[in-house]
């Protein structure tokens, strides 16, 4: 049933995402084309302006894609599971977990799509599909004392992926917690967002403090030294690992809350 639910997720939103992806890619192509024509014409004012405008539009579109994805994920979850459409979805012979995770999986897949479009757009704009700028970025980081190996790269990517999942899970948990209210569900969802955000920040700070104590004891001053025998690599790696662990714990808590409410406390008034 999860597969069928996912099919309807993509059917409902696919055209919209395809549209915004094509717009973002089109602006990138126009920016590069304008630049090429401008160079060929030795500085044509029309194409020069067009290059700047299309480049700005491409950058705005790429940022907008991520904002739209977050907003659409929230709206889709609320409308499809907690508003009128929920009267149909919750009477389907499927589990609350399938309903919830179909939304979460769809959101993750749209974010992967966003990142793919971002990479393709950057590839078009830089005319470099081998992404050599990533290597340059690595060199800059290594000059600051960091040693970036495949382990750290893996943990970094894992952290990014988990951050997306954790954020979506938190938004969905807020909507579900807000739905328990009998009067102002929207306002209560926002209140729950503030509460969960603060709890997340406190847990992260506690996690990082524990990491500092474990790694450096009471000698925190070493963190602010750039050239030292205790290079920051270990600390950065430790930060990522700690952040991954915290993200896993928080994501599990958010999803547990959502599933409990959808399964045991559903309140479609």
């Amino acid at each position: 049933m999860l597969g069928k639910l996912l099919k309807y997720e993509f059917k409902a939103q696919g055209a919209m995402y395809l549209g915004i992806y094509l717009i973002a890619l089109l602006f990138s192509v126009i920016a590069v084309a304008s630049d090429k024509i401008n160079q060929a014409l030795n500085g044509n004012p029309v194409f020069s302006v067009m290059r700047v405008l299309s480049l700005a539009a491409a950058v705005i579109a790429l940022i907008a894609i991520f904002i739209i994805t977050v907003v659409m994920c929230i709206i889709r979850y609320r409308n499809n599971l907690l508003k009128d459409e929920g009267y149909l979805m919750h009477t389907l012979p499927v589990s609350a977990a399938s309903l919830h995770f179909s939304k979460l999986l769809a959101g993750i897949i749209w974010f992967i799509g966003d990142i793919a479009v971002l990479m393709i757009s950057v590839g078009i704009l830089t005319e470099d599909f081998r992404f050599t700028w990533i290597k340059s970025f690595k060199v800059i980081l290594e000059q600051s004392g960091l040693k970036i190996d495949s382990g750290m790269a893996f943990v970094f990517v894992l952290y990014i992926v988990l951050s997306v999942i954790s954020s979506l899970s938190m938004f969905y948990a807020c909507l579900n917690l807000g739905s328990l209210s009998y009067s102002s569900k929207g306002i209560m969802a926002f209140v729950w967002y503030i509460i969960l955000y603060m709890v997340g920040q406190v847990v992260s700070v506690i996690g990082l403090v524990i990491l500092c104590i474990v790694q450096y004891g009471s000698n925190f001053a070493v963190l602010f030294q750039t050239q030292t025998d205790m290079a920051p690599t270990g600390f950065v790696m430790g930060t990522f690992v700690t952040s991954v662990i915290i993200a896993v714990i928080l994501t599990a808590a958010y999803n547990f809350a959502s599933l409990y409410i959808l399964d045991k406390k559903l309140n479609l008034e």
Partner: protein
Amino acid sequence: MDFLVDCRSLKKSYGRRPVLHDFSLQLERGRIIGLLGPNGSGKTTFIKILAGILSKNSGEIKISGRQIGIESKKIVSYLPERTYFSPSMKVKDTIKFFEDFYKDFKRERAEQMLSGLDISLNSKIKELSKGTREKVQLVLVMSREAELYLLDEPMGGVDPAARDYILKTILTNYNENASVIISTHLISDVEKVLDDVVFIKEGNVVLHQSVDEIRRENGMSVDALFREVFAC
């Protein structure tokens, strides 16, 4: 006795406002039951709990021996009092949706009824009038071979001619092993098709009797009895 719906000591409140108090009701198979009561009496709340979209506070409720959940949803066909399809869907998409999720859905039956109502399969839900959207939903709900049909105000937004069509649809589509629960204020319209009535007042069942018994014992119609019981 093996009841289709067996509900005992059900309690539900919205915050501090109690809606169902110690609500108990047993319903048999093969009956068309009118769930009648004034606004706020708890009719819709009871139907929503049966449909599985509202959680109870306490009590026991079973449909065909199954707890409310995936298994009960396989045999319950629910028509809420609001439009639940995405406005961007076409009528044919809604048919496909039901076909995908309900094994007991009969496509031919749905298409036949929609054709009888002159509703195009290519129409978008958002382009249909409120009454037509309600008809589409009723057609889909009644095109399932469910054991329990829950119809919450099925005639609320349609004209009198359409009401007759809806009643005809209900009568011709439910099978003898199934029961239909109809919650409505339009008692005189539905009275002719009802086998039993349940009067609900302030979250309690105050009467559960067959229509024939009501007429025989009270010498009045269900509509007249309702007006007497719930007189302001």
